[in-house]
């Protein structure tokens, strides 16, 4: 009886949790920035998830649950200061957005001229890596993983309103960084309308 419920647990876990391994590995890569640490982090995440699988609430998103475990494991293992929230230089962020207003370009202009294709994928990755961790996280979870604000709020442990404002700011910063790249690489020329 016991062993059959055990097998059942294994089967369910393998079926439901293992399908998200690509997403978890991608996210790990962004957090740790190297594949060895990313592998370790994913291993550890699955170990913890398996151990506490009985605490998982049926009907909620197992993907979000796994991400939350992964994020906490990352903080425990890799961040020097335990659970200390990252200090965000808000002045820097604000000045970023201030600069945005001065710029006559936005993505709509690039699209019109079909210039978006000229960006390299590396540009996008490095632009993303320039964002503070908290901002990078919401972009990845929302735009790459397609999680809802509620799930993200659950994972990063902050109110939904904060997820929303972080996402909005993060996208503005990304636009700015990418436009800077575009200027530097001569994809667009300065001082156009």
């Amino acid at each position, binding site marked *: 009886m016991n062993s059959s419920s055990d097998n059942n647990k294994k089967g369910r876990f393998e079926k439901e949790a293992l399908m998200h391994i690509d997403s978890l*590995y991608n996210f790990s890569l962004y957090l740790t920035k190297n594949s060895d640490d990313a592998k370790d982090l994913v291993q550890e995440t699955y170990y913890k998830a398996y151990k506490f699988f009985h605490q998982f609430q049926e009907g909620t998103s197992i993907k979000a649950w796994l991400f939350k475990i992964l994020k906490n494991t990352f903080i425990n293992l890799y961040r020097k200061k335990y659970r200390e929230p990252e200090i965000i230089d808000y002045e820097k962020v604000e000045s970023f957005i201030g600069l945005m207003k001065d710029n006559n370009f936005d993505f709509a202009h690039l699209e019109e001229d079909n210039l978006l294709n000229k*960006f390299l994928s590396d540009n996008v990755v490095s632009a993303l890596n320039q964002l503070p961790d908290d901002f990078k996280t919401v972009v990845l979870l929302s735009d790459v993983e397609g999680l809802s604000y509620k799930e993200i709020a659950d994972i990063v442990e902050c109110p939904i309103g904060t997820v929303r404002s972080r996402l909005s700011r993060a996208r503005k910063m990304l636009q700015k960084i990418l436009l800077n790249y575009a200027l530097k690489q001569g994809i667009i020329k300065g001082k156009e309308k």
Partner: protein
Amino acid sequence: MNCMQCQENITPYIDNELDEKTKKEVTAHLDICEKCSSFYKSEYLLKSFVQKRLSKISAPDDLKESIRKSIRSDFSFKQNLFFRKKILPYFRPIIAYAAAAVLVVFIATYLMSKLWQQKDVDLSKILLPDDFTYVSESENKIALTGTIVCVCCEMKKYGGHPACKKFGHTYGLKTDNGVLWTIMKNDKGMKVIDHNELIGARAKITGWFFFNSNYIDLEELELTSFAQSDTKVFSLNK
């Protein structure tokens, strides 16, 4: 809805996180406002651009396989990541330092032993003239020929201190390679020391040689030539 309210709602509008009522209001505003509409278009394009360009890497097969195996074996062979990441880094420098210390001690000991060996070997090679013979090698009992001298006077010649403060060298033997040996002041030695007239005489000496202090414990002395004409036949055993 005014522009400010609209722009505040653009992000959740794009992510489809607004309730139906607000969503309709935003759509209505975007239809009539060019500024907000371009604002919306820009962010929408960025989102789709990021989605398109951030290609997902799939997890390595070995990782997938090892996790699958781990699940089937209840994670019984799991390595302790907490130990490896959090505890071990603190001890790694200590282990490294300990290893370095052991190595230094080992090398130092090796070099010291080499140095001592070299000292033993070299001293006899450096200090003794070519024509000596070992009477007993293990006791450093040696027979050699030299000139009897006043060690103090010889040292003075070379600008040294006339009386040796360390070993109290007095009378002795100067071998042909220029090394000064002092005769130990025991019964046999005193007999040589007491005879001033022996200075300058050539003698063949047998005795125990002490290389570190340049002393000779005299056993036999055989005069071969005399510096001073009035020197008589000299015997230690008399």
